């Protein structure tokens, strides 16, 4: 028997899922080991092996493929433990990294300090060299200065070097030569040039992205090397793949060179997992939500394609420009704390109680009421069956904290206060969903909500109600959602060519050639990763705007549109998309700014086993009844509680109902109806609202 395994390393748990050739799956959760995340990976693999009754050494040779989402690089940035980075930049322009194009995240509060640059000024070495916009060499590369800088870097104990010169995205000769010299002079050091990472116009973003790559590259490389070594020792002969921010995967070698592409590796698995759990149900427009202890991630999939964005800021301040999954995160999770300001307004979050001390009901000494406490008070969570009873929740403490901290000061009842906490936190999440849907020109009513994370299914139905969404899918394996995402992702590599061209003056032959060149690059990378030609495919697009706009919209392009007749078709697509997004279209000329190619290598995705129909009747799985609060019913009503672990294919549960599973609780409001699909997932339908 052969297996594929997906791994997702979270802050608290490392999740693993193993699927065999027959489509049967096994799931394992093991505590994360932040100091060396690889320990948890090996530990999890041993646990998986054990599930099959094998030792690690017996299991590993049968492991065909391992997909690995990693938070190593993200944590490196967030904990300030990255490499000491030296930067070579064009002379006269030493500080662009620090000037950050002038932006301040908080306009009114000057007490927020300027974020320290990831390459400090004394390690930013200006090098004499310069190209003009048209490729004219204003100053040749001063190779002596590059060598001197290398010597200085060595003295200073620099661990990684980034190179980013002006106009290098179009005229890379100086930059490439400088990088070559650094590699000669400092053979043991991590070296990265902006043209190798993201050769795109706008030097600040290119430089910031390249410096991030240098900052996290050594740490990720060490981790990869160590892990690959350990895997080899256990007899692993399969393929290891690393999840990227763009939801594709890549080889460990590529991951080391392009470490920056793993900065959103974790949550990027979400939309792919959403696709995996819904495509056999004929659903391909979906919104995935993932609500854990401290945060809520949301992303959108349209016609089977995850929505992408091009830029973000790691830790809120370090700018990154690369194709990436458009995951929107807000600080709303089970542990978010409710509080009243001194003028009597109630707020929830962004402060969270974390796992320790956790919500008040954990009885670990925190008096602060959280969303989880409100969920206990409102009857959604069973105090005796949280994580299958592993954590005992104390209802009395939840009530006490909500009463004393919220209800009494505001002069309301404890239940009213719990409801207020829920309404406010639900609204914040609804706003989060709107950000990736309404604000991107998409109508959420046309989408299915795919729900993950321990706290997701508790809140999903009320979010759906606010958003007028009528269909929800709650995968049985919702708590290890992102681990699945990596497993079914294709290899992916992104390429870009910057041009600023008015489309009316565009030469179709040139355009065609520019794309062909990028595709050839893609071919050679996929070749190096051992992907046969028949399994390669390409998706092409262009960033477009009306002439003299500043922001672009990425427009998908079909191969045959790269012709004289095709260009107007592309332009019309742009007009339509602009109108969808911004409520108007214009008559002025359009421009193409960046041409993009995503080169894919197809992997075989595991099948899901379809199980036979058992029965519609779920009544025998009712464990008990308790009073649960439902907004539409105006208060608490007696509600049947089902054993969610035991429900069988075909079972239908009418709301109001609660389905209790080991790792999550699903709330089904009055009027809604849940059905167990042939894959064992819950499909919930809500009545339409006017």
């Amino acid at each position: 028997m052969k297996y594929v395994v997906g791994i997702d390393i979270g802050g608290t748990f490392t999740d693993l899922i193993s699927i065999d050739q027959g489509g049967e799956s096994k799931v394992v959760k093991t505590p994360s080991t932040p100091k060396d995340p690889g320990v948890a990976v090996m530990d999890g693999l041993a646990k998986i092996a054990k599930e099959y009754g094998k030792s690690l050494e017996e299991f590993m040779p049968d492991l065909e493929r391992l997909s690995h989402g990693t938070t190593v690089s993200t944590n490196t940035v967030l904990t300030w433990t990255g490499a000491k980075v030296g930067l070579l930049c064009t002379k006269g322009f030493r500080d662009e990294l620090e000037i950050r194009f002038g932006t301040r995240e908080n306009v009114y509060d000057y007490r927020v300090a300027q974020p320290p640059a990831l390459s400090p000024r004394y390690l930013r070495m200006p090098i004499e060299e310069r190209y003009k916009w048209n490729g004219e060499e204003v100053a040749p590369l001063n190779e002596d200065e590059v060598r001197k800088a290398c010597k200085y870097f060595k003295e200073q104990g620099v661990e990684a070097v980034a190179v980013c010169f002006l106009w290098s995205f179009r005229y890379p000769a100086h930059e490439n030569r400088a990088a070559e010299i650094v590699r000669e002079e400092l053979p043991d050091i991590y070296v990265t040039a902006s043209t190798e990472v993201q050769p795109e116009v706008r030097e600040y973003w290119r430089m910031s992205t390249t410096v991030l790559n240098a900052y996290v590259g050594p740490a990720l490389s060490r981790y990869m090397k160590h892990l690959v070594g350990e895997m080899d020792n256990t007899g692993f002969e399969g393929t290891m793949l690393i999840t990227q921010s763009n939801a594709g995967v890549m080889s460990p070698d590529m991951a080391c060179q392009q470490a920056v592409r793993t900065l959103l590796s974790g949550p990027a698995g979400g939309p792919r997992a959403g696709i995996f759990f819904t495509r056999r149900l004929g659903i391909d427009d979906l919104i995935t939500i993932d609500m854990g202890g401290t945060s809520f991630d949301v992303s959108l999939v349209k016609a089977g394609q995850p929505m992408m964005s091009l830029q973000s800021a790691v830790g809120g301040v370090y700018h990154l420009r690369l194709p990436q999954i458009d995951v929107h995160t807000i600080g709303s999770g089970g542990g978010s704390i409710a509080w009243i300001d001194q003028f009597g307004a109630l707020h929830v979050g962004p402060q969270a109680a974390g796992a320790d001390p956790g919500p008040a009901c954990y009885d670990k000494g925190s008096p602060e009421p959280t969303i989880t406490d409100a969920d206990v008070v409102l009857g959604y969570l069973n105090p005796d069956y949280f994580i299958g009873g592993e954590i005992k929740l104390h209802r009395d403490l939840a009530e006490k904290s909500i009463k004393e901290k919220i209800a009494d000061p505001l002069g309301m009842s404890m239940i009213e206060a719990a409801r207020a906490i829920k309404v406010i936190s639900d609204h914040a999440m609804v706003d989060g969903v709107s950000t990736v849907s309404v604000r991107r020109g998409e109508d959420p009513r046309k989408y299915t909500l795919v729900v993950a994370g321990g706290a997701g299914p508790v809140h999903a139905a009320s979010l759906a109600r606010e958003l007028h969404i009528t269909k929800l899918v709650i995968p049985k394996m919702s708590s290890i959602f992102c681990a699945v995402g990596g497993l079914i992702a294709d290899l992916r590599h992104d390429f870009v060519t910057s041009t600023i061209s008015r489309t009316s003056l565009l030469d179709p032959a040139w355009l065609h050639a520019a794309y062909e060149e990028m595709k050839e690059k893609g071919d050679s990378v996929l070749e190096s990763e051992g992907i046969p030609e028949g399994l390669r495919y390409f998706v092409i697009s262009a960033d477009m705007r009306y002439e003299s706009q500043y922001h672009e919209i990425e427009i998908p392009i079909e191969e045959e549109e790269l012709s004289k007749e095709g260009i107007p078709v592309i332009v019309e697509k742009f007009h339509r998309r602009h109108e969808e997004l911004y409520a108007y279209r214009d008559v002025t000329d359009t421009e193409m700014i960046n041409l993009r190619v995503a080169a894919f290598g197809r992997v075989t995705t595991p099948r899901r086993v379809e199980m036979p129909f058992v029965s519609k009747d779920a009544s025998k799985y009712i464990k008990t009844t308790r009073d649960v609060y439902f907004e539409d019913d105006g208060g608490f009503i007696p509600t049947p509680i089902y054993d969610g672990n035991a429900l069988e294919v075909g079972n239908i549960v009418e709301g109001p109902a609660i389905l209790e599973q080991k790792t999550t609780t699903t709330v089904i409001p009055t009027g809604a109806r849940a059905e167990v699909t042939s894959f064992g997932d819950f499909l919930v339908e809500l009545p339409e609202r006017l």
Partner: protein
Amino acid sequence: MTNEKKELKLKTSPADFEVLASSFYTAAREMGINIERTARAPVFFSAHDYVVTINKPNGDLITLAEYIPVLVGATPFAIRAVMEYYKGDIHEGDIFLCNDPYTLAGGNQLADWCVVVPVFYQGEHMFTIAIKAHQADTGGGVPGGYNPNAMDIWGEGLRIPPMRIVERGVERSDVWDLILTNIRLEEMQRSDLHCMIAATVVGSRRLVGLVDMWGKEVVETYIDDVFNYSEARMREQVARIPDGTYHGEVKPLSPGRYNDASIVRCDMVVKGSDMTLDFTQCGPQVKEYVNSTLANTYSSAYLTLLISLGKEMNREYRNSGCFRMLTILTKEGTILHAAKPATEGNDTNFTAAQVIDVIETCLAQGLPEETPAGWGHIPYWTISGMDLRRGRGYGGPDFNGTCSGAGAIWGTDGWHTGAPQICSGTLWYPEIEVAESVYPIVWERWELVPDSGAPGRWRGGCGVYDQWVADSDPEPINLAYCADPYDYEVKPAIAGGKMPGKNSKRLLMKDGHWESNEDTRRVSLYQLHSGDRVFDEDQGGCGVGDPLDRDIEAVKRDVRDELVSMKSALNDYGVIIDPVTFVVDVKATNALRKEMKSKAKA
């Protein structure tokens, strides 16, 4: 202050209050994003020079998504002017436009055009959306609206009194044509007007949905509540300032050719939780184009109070209630209350910065630990001409030369660059590759100026060198000197912090001939040809606290980073550092600092 706190009792339920606050803000923010993503004029997308507000019909501000903070209080003036002008004649589907500061005091600056849209709910005028944005051009004597030579306001641009440009959903094309015919970049401006109107469509939809969902009564109660809430929060801050009268002023300086200067001064009177800003003692309006309109004076004052007293006010609660504690006094005909036909094109830069400086000077006396120190000023150029590479014209400020340093605040160093303070970090400096694509110019230097951040326990941020060479032949580049005089004295420096040195602006012509600071101020208009160079050295920000108390490690780091010279470390900060190893002689440093302090006392 405890009394006021007890008096505040919100009528809206806690859940509704928080959700409605967020929903209103979201509606404004959505409109803002719509504009940000689609605008054309560089000043629009680079300086984010616009504001989106949702108001009661009368102009009381409910919420805003401000992009440039100096416009934070400008739209109520436009709304009140429109409502007064069209009283009893406002209908569903109407859209109004205005910019004129002298018709019913509706405008702050001619180049800032305001679109005003009444939002109706079941036939009743329930909200007014206003979007004000700086346009690429506004007619008048020179492109772009900054005309240092204008004799009067007609020389500065087209005056648009409140004007109905869409009547019950139908565009009045004759009115549009009359306006846009007077504009140089007619088509770009038409697109940008459409972009603003499209945003109001998005916002109107959202607001109607909001009332549908919550009901009129709940929404109206909420609006009363949120005004009271914001008022209480701001009053609590004002009450922390000891009662008294505080004075601030900046010495009169002329920015331009008429050499006509007038003093800007402020008396701040605090009594309990009430504050009065008295500007009536300012000097008379001047010939220079820096007379502040009433709307600009108010808006600049609002900005200053938000970055000091209101810095913890969440964005959802920035509304009219914040300023109920405030009375502003002005005298018509003075530099802070311009009367027709005074010129005003540069009031949102030059004069707004002075309003900020004088109010901060007052606040620093009452609350030194809460008040930002002065930011470096921005004497910048505007450039225009014909770009043969693209076969079209260009024009706009050289934003890369507006990168002065930020002032420090108690506990935090000033940021390097980030200026002007009227933007406070919403001005996106064009990247060199972008600037070189838009202008026929090659940049030679754009990086921080060592020692430009003024010393302090918390150091002012550094400004930049901005140096470039014209590459436009055979077309010339027109260069106009704008905004502040290069020798502007930045204030306040707080609690023993220092003031920065001067700005420097020079030109070097291809023939080897130099234009000095004084020349550039006197002449102010140049034509450059390929090979001619421009040198700017932008000022840093003011420091806070005695530099001799600065953390030694921080001084060492600045020296290592070559942002503070060895000389300044020694003379300003009293820190003795080995020039090779950067090791600090702590003992000698402590002794030196002690000696310097006692000398300063004597």
